[in-house]
């Protein structure tokens, strides 16, 4: 039986929307009437998102080739557009941007035609941001959802171009080809950040390492868009040197996409090792930094 979409409010007022595999945590700031209207708009838009996506699922899971039709749904079009610039060099299906695209779509429904000072839609760690003039968001980065502690922090201001944050890693819900605990990417849109985080996390890797256990994606999920590709199932102990090598490989990937103008900054985390890309460059100098771990995070990201 298809369970209908659900909406709920946390005690602190945040909105929670759920449908099938999608869970959104939403918060808007501004005049109460505008905030409440934005929550209503979010719910209205959300109720049909999953059905729209599922109507085109086979197309979205496929490796788009010349001549394959363009998807029709608004979220699906966001997904296809987000992965397109990466596809010249890497294998990526539109599904790599699904979480970010859903977050963006719902955020747009909330912000269009109304004044909000700030708002975010957090789709399981892939976050779309709205920032009014002079506003900022402070984002905590968490590498292990099972042991939530902040390994880094990013402050995003209205003047920055960043409007999307996404995290990928083998411990997360989606499959990863790499061994990164977490790769957090800041980009101009959540869908771009989502796709880039997937690729950079894939690149944090050491080929053929015996402590890394992998399995064909299709053995774990028959419908995975990754097919026979071997995804990470477990990561044994790595030496500091190996961690450094894996992070360097990921950082090179991040630099590639930053050079292409597709991402703004990235933070890569493996074990106790952290690498920042783009964090020292203007205008992001100092906006992304590492912090000592603290037990304060609420989910994949603490946003506030």
């Amino acid at each position: 039986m298809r369970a209908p979409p659900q909406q709920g409010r946390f005690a602190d007022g945040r909105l929670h929307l759920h449908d099938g595999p999608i869970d959104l945590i939403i918060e808007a700031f501004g005049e109460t009437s505008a905030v409440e209207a934005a929550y209503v708009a979010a719910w209205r838009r959300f109720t049909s998102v999953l059905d729209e996506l599922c109507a085109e699922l086979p197309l979205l899971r496929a490796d788009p080739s010349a001549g394959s039709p363009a998807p029709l749904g608004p979220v699906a079009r966001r997904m296809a557009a987000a992965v397109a610039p990466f596809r010249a060099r890497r294998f990526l299906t539109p599904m790599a941007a699904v979480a970010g695209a859903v977050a963006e779509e719902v955020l747009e429904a909330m912000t269009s035609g109304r004044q909000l000072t700030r708002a975010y839609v957090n789709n399981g760690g892939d976050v779309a941001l709205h920032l009014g003039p002079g506003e900022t968001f402070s984002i905590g980065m968490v590498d292990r959802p099972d042991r939530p502690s902040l390994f880094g922090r990013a402050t995003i201001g209205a003047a920055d171009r960043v409007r999307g944050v996404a995290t990928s890693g083998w411990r997360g819900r989606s499959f990863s080809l790499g061994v990164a605990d977490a790769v957090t990417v800041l980009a101009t849109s959540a869908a771009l950040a989502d796709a880039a985080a997937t690729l950079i996390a894939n690149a944090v890797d050491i080929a053929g390492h015996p402590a890394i256990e992998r399995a064909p994606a299709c053995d774990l999920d028959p419908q995975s868009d990754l097919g026979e590709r071997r995804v990470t199932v477990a990561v044994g102990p790595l030496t500091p040197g190996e961690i450094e090598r894996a992070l360097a490989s990921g950082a090179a990937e991040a630099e590639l996409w930053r050079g292409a103008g597709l991402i703004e900054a990235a933070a890569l985390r493996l074990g106790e090792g952290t690498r920042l890309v783009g964090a020292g460059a203007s205008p992001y100098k100092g906006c992304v930094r590492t912090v000592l771990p603290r037990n304060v995070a609420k989910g994949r990201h603490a946003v506030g």
Partner: protein
Amino acid sequence: MTEADDKIRCDACPVLCYIRPGMTGACDRYANQDGQLVRVDPHVLLDHAVSEGGKVVPFVNAEGLWSGDILNTPGPFVTAVGAGTTYPDYKPAPFIVSSKADGVDMVTVVTEGIYSYCGVKLKIDTDRHLGAECATVRAQGEPVGHVTTGEYGSQMLSLGGVNHLTHGGKKEGRVTCETLLDLCNGKSVELVVDGGASVIVQAGKTPIINGKFEERMRVGCGSATIGMFAKQWGDKVDEVVVVDDHITGVLSEHQAGKLLGMRETGIKMKGRRSTPGRYFHVAEPGTSWGGTNISDPLDIIAGFNPKVAWSGMTMLMVSTTGEQYAFYRLGEDLRPVEAELPETLRESVERISENCEPALCSVLFMAGAGGSLRAGVTENPVRLTRSVRQALTTVTAGGAPVIVWPGGGITFMVDVTLLPENSFGYVPTPAIVAPIEFTLRLDDYAALGGHVDEVRPLDEVVAQHAKRPNNVFASGAVARAADARRKA
């Protein structure tokens, strides 16, 4: 739908995942257990001291220890939300968790119970008549319960129960299950009472009766209202009638009016006089003034005794919520003529409504933890019941405190708004799936024949759940339960 290689297709959402045995679908909520589709939400660990209204807070404090005290200390508490169940429970409950506290090993046995014996007690704050006692309550046209007693400022409905779930038609069972599930998960449900009102109810929300929001709960019955406001009326008006379908109050006759030395007015009320100044059954029940069916309050007055009443006498009539009021002056013929409410009285009318609490719907889930569920906790089920009776075992539902009924069995009630969001589920039997936890000392657990071999330290459960979610199911409790079964 089982494929040749034991994949099953989940139809819980339109993604329609094919799920291999021991794996979860894209949502991590549904999994394939030995060819069966089951729900396996990750455990919800919640911190009672911090959470209000079921807010979920982060995992595990710095020490990773649980103090063992369920309700009064901060720190994580393992709830059964999403624990899954092993019904029929010849297998140990999915999660039997222990944690060290002050040198005493505590055990929490968590499971999701499947309750065929369950229902909802619904309290709707309203004076309005929703229907006669025992009248059938319907959802989607199907009988799902009945109107039960009228209580203080509220009307009680009793929904569900084993008869509606299993003894009626197939559709009746399905609709009953759906209604209970929606109410328990905090969703709104429309109910129609045979020969009565249509109400939209939602736990913790304002009831909507015949399309109108019920804003206020009455300040008291008519007689109580007289008692509360007599002093404010005594020197400003000659007579006050507080219109109430249950007990209408008349100030001049009421003890409170007598104490204030109020003059007799010769008012003759309809209905039956109970004690001085208190009248029953002044009209028929309805959805108007004070829960009566009248739209003109004068309909409840039979007349005035010409030997006592006087021309120019003033009278205020007001409902128990202050929502309706009218002010009258008696003419030469001793007939009341409506006049504008004087400012001096307006304040008292406003004070009645100000003193009304907001009207709400409250939903208590009631269920019996029957024999087979208890067997998931101990090999000797009746000992668990006795242990609960002796208060050695604490019962909670999704971490929320429950009221355990005295008498046989473990029949409990819980306020659904105290459980984490969407804690309830269903199976097509039809029956409701709800979390239940039994917490007791490890030695008491052993003494009652508990599955001591299955006890796992809290940090181990948390750690296993922290693993890659797609492996949680395979490496977690169900695999363990399956192992136990093979051993057995």
